[in-house]
């Protein structure tokens, strides 16, 4: 592999990685506050992507307006999910909660297949399609990829500031560290859980809107993306948003470079297997710590 090719794979890796990082952030926020793995995280992304297509390409709204409406819709779905499906299941075990979120994701996916059909859609690109060439190396980057990477950076910074400097953000962090102690100082853990779900849905919807013109949107895009996001979050340990973002970028780069090597089993048809293998590896390496955490929770 020449240096130019490597640079090209690195660019695609960072683009994919930003997508995974955004998904991973959703997992991390919900898990940290509620200890629930939200199997429907990918569906928020799908709603964002598909709605932005309908609003921008079919209904003819301007791109900023369609983006805003799509994100708000995803947020509404997140709130509905928490209030109707999660909140009503009190004292549910881990198994029950996993199955409830899977049920919700199947439900959303089914409705989406009814509304939009099974074809893939391409919402309009944000700003043209002429690829820009990079300095120093012979590689290109599409404007949409810049949008994706930029969104990941902005969302990460905003989230960091939100968690660090606002009262609600601090309360969310308190819930993540110790829900009971947070309750003792007057933090409403149920309201925090709702905020976590809405926040995750907003991030999911945003990433769906931004990535849909690049990777195309379809009703079942959430399944594999959700899994990749989970891998990113598990590299980050489900605690720290920054670590999750690093995990997502790492996964994207590893995937693309491994496919680029095109050696032995690392061909593009096994791209997903690479992510899954990374997942298993991470889980097994960290298993000792994860087990003690689960026991404590």
């Amino acid at each position: 592999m020449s240096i130019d090719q490597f640079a090209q794979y690195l660019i695609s890796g960072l683009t994919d990685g930003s997508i995974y990082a955004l998904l991973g952030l959703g997992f991390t926020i919900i898990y940290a506050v509620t200890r629930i793995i939200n199997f429907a995280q990918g569906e928020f992304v799908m709603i964002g992507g598909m709605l932005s297509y309908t609003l921008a390409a079919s209904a003819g709204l301007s791109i900023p307006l369609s983006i805003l409406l799509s994100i708000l819709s995803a947020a509404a779905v997140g709130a509905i999910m928490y209030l109707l499906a999660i909140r009503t299941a009190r004292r549910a075990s881990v198994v029950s909660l996993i199955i409830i979120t899977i049920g919700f994701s199947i439900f959303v996916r089914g409705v989406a297949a009814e509304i939009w059909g099974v074809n893939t859609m391409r919402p309009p690109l944000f700003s043209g399609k002429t690829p820009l060439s990079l300095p120093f190396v012979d590689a290109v980057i599409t404007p949409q990829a810049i949008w994706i990477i930029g969104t990941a950076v902005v969302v990460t910074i905003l989230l960091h500031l939100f968690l660090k400097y606002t009262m609600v953000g601090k309360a969310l962090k308190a819930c993540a560290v110790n829900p009971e102690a947070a309750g003792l100082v007057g933090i409403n853990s149920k309201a925090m859980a709702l905020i976590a779900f809405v926040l995750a849905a907003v991030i999911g919807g945003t990433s769906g809107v931004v990535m849909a013109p690049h990777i195309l949107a379809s009703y079942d895009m959430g399944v594999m993306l959700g899994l990749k996001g989970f891998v990113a979050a598990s590299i980050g340990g489900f605690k720290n948003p920054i670590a999750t973002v690093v995990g997502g970028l790492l996964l994207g780069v590893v995937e693309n470079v491994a496919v680029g090597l095109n050696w032995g089993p690392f061909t593009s048809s096994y791209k997903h297997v690479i992510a899954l293998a990374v997942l298993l590896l991470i889980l097994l390496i960290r298993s000792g710590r994860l087990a003690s955490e689960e026991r404590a929770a």
Partner: protein
Amino acid sequence: MLKFIVSKWKYLVAAALLIFLILIPFDWFLGQYTSIMIFIGISTIVTVGLCLLMGYTGQVSLGQAAFYGLGAYFSAVLSKSYDVNPWLAMLIAAVATGLFAFIIGYPIFRLRGNYLAMATLGIGLIIYILFRQLIGITGGPDGMAGIPYLSIGGFEFDTNFKRYFLVWFFCLSVLFLSQNIVRSRTGRALRAIHGSEVAAESIGINVTRFKVKIFVLSAVYASLAGSLFVHHLRFVSPQTFDFLGSVKLVVMAVIGGLASIWGAIFGAGATTILSDELLLNLGEWDIVAYGIILMLVMIFTPEGLFVALKSATHWLQHNWRDLPSIVKRKRKELPAIVKSILKRSLLTRGWRKAEP
């Protein structure tokens, strides 16, 4: 006489059910349902394994369809491409799948809860992708056709009628075997693990070994079901064994009540009939209904629909005489109950003050 019936009613019901089960495939009885009953039998075998793993031991598996698929593909490839005797192929499939579960069992059972769920999901998806990509061996996404029937001597299981008895013979054997396991020392150890792993360990139960044991058993059950599946349909394609396939198996176990061996038939039956008969009328909305049912069952009867029905009939048995007065009382309480459900789902109370 009445006293005899009352005291032995469980055996009488069991005998009646057995006779019913034997009569189903005859054309003058319920012959048109033979095919769906075969699928119910096959699904029950996988579900029982999942019940042992999830209900009794408390360990999640979101990759059970992979073991089901391994059994199916081992049987299909060996008996079709390599002309191995189907029975021998079935045995090799079960041993190989069990061995695979044993090898992955020790590392993954160091994980718990959510992480275990994700690890099993990951393994399941890897195997599913291999089924699709190893085109030279598995036929890829198009699958394989023309797999031979099972036969004993010259007797070939070539009609639904014959295969019905074959499948249900295996199904009932698996159910009885599982019931014995649950009632044995092993079963008590499993329940202890479910209750508290620390406590189980402190009374000398080797927690990991029992978990792996039951994981291997559930994999062997799934493999057996997979073999029966391919020798019934004579066709196999990867689609059956994807993530949704694993979820469907979990749904069967959940509806049947996770900690209930005989509930597995109920779960497999209800789910199969629901998705193959009733929901088909809804057209493509079936998957939507599926998701809703899944959520409702988990929210309102987390111990399983079958177990909930069982306790409801139990309650009726004891309280049927006072039923009118209870209904009257409950009707008065109804507004309060509705209100509390609304409170639970909406934030009416939560916003105002913190939970104590």
